[in-house]
Each structure stands twice: as C-alpha cells, then as structure tokens.
C-alpha cells in the first residue's frame, strides 16, 4: 500500500514526541476513530517515548544535533468503522520526528536540509504544535521594549544591536504555516493539504479558558497566528487542544492517580464542533481529521 506522510512540525519543547507516543498507544488500543490493525515491525522510537510516559515522565527533548529524519512511526491505519470491512481503506502513515530546534533554525535561516523538504513536499498533511506554558515560548513585542529600541538603536553600532534568534512564538507559528503553505504536496492528484494545529498541555489552562476552546485560546495568545489561520485559503486548518495524559507529572497527586489508571483512559482532545466545544478521549482525532481529506479524495 502506498505510504502517506504526515509531517510533525513545531519548535523545541512543543510536545511532538510525547503526542506521537500517546497516539501510538491509542491506535494500538483500537478504541479511537482511527485504529492500527497490526503492530508494525519497527516501533523502537515510539516505544522509547511511551516508556517515559508509563513511568510518569514526559519524554525528554529530541536529539538536538542530528539533521537526520528519524521515522517516529510508520503504521497502517484504518477508520474504526471500517476495521473489519474488506473494502476498508488502509493507509500506511509515516510520521517522521524532527528535532524542534532544527525546525526553529530552519525558519530562521530560511533553509532546510533537502531530505526534509522532500518529505514535506510529499506529505499530504501536517501536525503543527505549540505548547501552553513552554519556557521556549516568547511573548510578542511589548511597549517598554519598543520605546527602548527607538531610543537607543540609532546610537548602537550594528555589532551591539541585540539580535535574538528566538522569534516571538506567534511569529514562529506563522512562519511554520508559511513553510507548509509553500511546500505541502499540492498536485492535482492530491487533495487540498490539511494542517491540524495541536495546542498541547491543554490541561494547564483554567476551566474558564478551557471552556472557550482552542480557537479562542489562540486568538487571545497569538493574534498574528490566529488571524492568519482565519485568512488562509490554500490549506484547510483545524485547531485541537491536546492533553497527552490529562495532567502534569510534577503534581504528586496527579502522578499517583495516573499510575493507578489505564493509560488509554488518560489524555484527551478538545475541539470546536460547529458552535460547541467538545472534549473527546481519543488522541487519534487530529490524525483522523487529516486522513479524512485523503479518503474523501479517493471516493
């Protein structure tokens, strides 16, 4: 069966590896919208990450140095409803995991290793990550800094000018989206590309913000990115709030409860369905949504 690629994109510490591990568990478990009928041959990478979760730790940041594309997960999947149907469409999805640090540098320098570009170009969809509360997140420009720049910059020699490699997170997200818009596969044989935006660590929000849903969260925290999502018409975008295990392991109480629970019953996805915000205990939802376009295109 032809392999279809999904690309995981997002800065360092945005939750890509932990999501992939948790996704694998839900695909294997068979209760989500998308299921994996068989265990694929090589699951080293994703099992390594899953082991951390099972031990009550989030998987550490992926290797910063290597530019190699690591195949995070390569697995045949099928819609739950079609699992036992002979005519059910099986799709083999390949999800390479790339160090967030390398994505960040890639958009900063506007150059990507050719192997990555090839993968992006042949991908039909992407999962774009941003994590709530990550120390890697950077706020937009504020008035104090702006006033200071205008006051001091004309007197600074170029070498003294502050240069930060860290772009504000909202700008980074827009740039990732621009990269995807430019590169995702778009020939006539392919459907319109889809990008699922995953706002991870959703459990860190207060109940009021949780209720308003991920679109509102983005509009409040990252107006540039939110505005762009509303404006873009070359790719289809949907936003999901995601909590991989339903809480934070640093909290003892949560950790204890987690060890006594069934992994498949922890973690959830929040998304807008028409006018409502719905919570579902199915981490395969974002990938199922990505695949929808592929299945619709075929039929």
């Amino acid at each position, binding site marked *: 069966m032809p392999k279809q690629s999904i690309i995981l994109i997002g800065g360092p510490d945005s939750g890509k590896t932990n999501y992939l591990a948790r996704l694998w568990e839900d695909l294997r478990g068979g209760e989500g919208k998308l299921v994996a009928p068989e265990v694929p041959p090589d699951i080293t990478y994703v099992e390594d990450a899953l082991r951390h979760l099972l031990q009550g730790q989030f998987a550490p940041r992926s290797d910063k140095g290597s530019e190699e594309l690591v195949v995070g997960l390569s697995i045949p999947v099928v819609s739950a409803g079609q699992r036992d149907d002979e005519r059910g469409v099986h799709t083999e999805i390949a999800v390479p995991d790339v160090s967030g640090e390398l994505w960040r540098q*890639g*958009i900063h320098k*506007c*150059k*990507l*290793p*050719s*192997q990555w*570009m090839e993968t992006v170009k042949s991908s039909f969809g992407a999962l774009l990550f941003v994590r709530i509360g990550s120390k890697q997140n950077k706020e*937009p*420009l*504020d*008035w104090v*800094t*702006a*006033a200071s*720049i*205008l006051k*001091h*910059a*004309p007197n*600074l020699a*170029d*070498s003294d*000018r*502050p*240069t*930060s490699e860290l*772009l*504000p997170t*909202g*700008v980074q997200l*827009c*740039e990732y989206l*621009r*990269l995807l818009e*430019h*590169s995702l596969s778009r020939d006539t044989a392919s459907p319109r590309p889809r990008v699922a935006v995953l706002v991870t660590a959703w459990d860190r929000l207060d109940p009021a913000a949780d209720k308003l849903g991920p679109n509102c969260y983005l*509009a409040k925290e990252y*107006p*540039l990115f939110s*505005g*762009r999502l*509303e*404006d*873009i018409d070359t790719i289809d975008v949907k936003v999901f709030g995601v909590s991989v295990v339903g809480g934070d392991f640093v909290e003892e109480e949560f950790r204890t409860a987690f060890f006594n629970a069934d992994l498949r019953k922890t973690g959830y996805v929040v998304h807008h369905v028409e006018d409502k915000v719905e919570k579902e205990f199915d981490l395969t939802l974002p990938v199922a949504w990505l695949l929808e376009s592929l299945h619709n295109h075929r039929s």
Partner: protein
Amino acid sequence: MATICTYENCTFVETGSCLLNNDPESCPHRDENDKTDAPLPELDPVAISEEPKGKIAIPDSFALTLNQVEDLMTRRYVHLVGILGEPNAGKTAVLLSLYLLLSRNLLKGYSYADSGTLMALDEISQGARIWNEGRLPDQVTTHTKGIDERTAGFIHLRVKSNDSAKRFDITLPDLPGEWTTSLIEKNRRDRLTFLRRADALWIMVNGEELSQPSSRQVVIHRVTLLIQRIAEIIHRETTLILVISRKDRATPDTGAIEAICDEANRRHMDLKVAVIASVSEKESITPGAGVSDLIDLTLRSLRNTPSFWPLDEHHQPEARMLLAYRYKR
C-alpha cells in the same frame, strides 16, 4: 553611479539620462560636492551564490523589493502607501507601533490577516532596520545579498476590517530619512519614482520639533518645501496625510498645521492630518494612539474609488463617451 548634476534642468535625477548625453563619470556639470552617494560596497559573488551543501532555500519573509511588490500586485489589489519624512520624523516608529498593535490585537477596528514580510517586521522590532545616516545595517544586508543598498525595502501587511470583514493588502516602504532630505534639498527623485503609483502618502513630521519655538519655523519651512517637491511627483488621486508624531511629548500647534495645509491647498492638494504617538512616555496618552485613525484615513479614501465613467458636464451628446472624457482639474 547616480550623481547630482549642476546643469540647470538636467533630468538625470529623474530619469538617469544626461540631458546633454554626457557620460555621468566625465560630465563637467557633475556636482563634486555631492556626498549622498557612497560607492556601492563590493559584493562578494562567491558569498552570494554559494548554497550550503544539501540545503534548500525557502522563500523568506524579509522586506520585499519593489519588483516583489509588483509581483504581489499581479495576484491581488495591493495598496501602495508611501512614507516620507526627514530623520527622526518617526517613520520607523510608526511601522514598529503598527506591528506591535497587530501582534497584540490592539489596533482598533482591524485585525491581522497576513504578512509576506513578518521577519522584516521582527527585525525592526530588534532595532535592526533603524537607519543610521542612510547606511543599511549589516543584519539586513545579510538577508538581502545582492540587492542595491539603496533599494527601498517594503513591508507587507494584510489586515481585516472588523466591521466589514473586508481585507486590505498594504505595502509600506521603510526608507531612510536621508532620502527625504535629498528630495527636499536636491530634488533627488530617482529612488522615489514608485511614489507616482502610491495610493496614499504619509508625510511624517516630528511633532515635538513642530511645537518647540526654536525649531517650529524650520520644520514648517522644510515640510512646505517637501510638499512642493511632492506636488511634482505624485498622482492627483493619491491620498495625502500629514502625520504628526510624538503626540505624547507635544500638543500639535494648530497654527503650524494650518500653515502647512495652506501650502498644500495652494497647490490644489487635499492634505489630511493625523496625530499619533507610536510609543508613549505619558500616562495620559495610550501608546499607539492615533495609529488606528491613520489606517482608517489611509484605507477609507481607497474604498471610495472614483466612478469608472465620471460625468462630464462638457460632454457633447453626439460625441463618443470615451473620447469626450476629460480628466477633471
């Protein structure tokens, strides 16, 4: 290399061609004292053309060149806004303010939709594009290798109007104040020909200097001169806006504004006025005050496009409409 010519009425500054067909290098009328043109830096061809092995470039979102703006214009309607003003008038500050307001969803009446130059805007927010005596800062040069250091860089913004949900594409140049000085003092327009196609033009004035007794007259004088120069360049339909900056530091002097507007009126130009504080040191003035109104003024007149077949009272009934059309003065 462009030079300034002392021969009267020489068209070199406008067209690049000597009126007497002299070679610019050896023309006897060339102004020896002209200091506005540093020699172009030697660009290392190897540094420009060499691609790191195994990497593919993706289109960047640094400032657009005029060619790239024209390219954008083939795909959708883009409102070209010119910004003139001497050094310290607040040209870069207003771009910075606009970027900050959109980044935090504070621009009243508008929200961000897109930008082809987000990285350039971020550069400005790090002080990278604050012009230093007309010299292009090194940081920007690294991203714009091969481009003539005196080419205008354009910022692109696409905004959505909150009441009408309509979207507008705007490009704004980021020019050194020295280019305006050159225009005023030497009528140097060769770098500013794009202004002929501008939908709107912001004439930036330092509001603090306009109010201080010691500098007031100089500013009025310079701005009126600028208006005189502009009158010879721009298209009649261009929306002209006098943008007075530093609202937090000085109350605009109505007498001074009137004097400037009178000059415009004398040349049959309609000059609108906006008073802004790109940033603010006064608690009573919100930072970014007036910027939203400035955008309103800039876009509002663009929404009222002149009717395609204007009525002409001199129209002879039997004459064909197309041939009888007169541009109203």
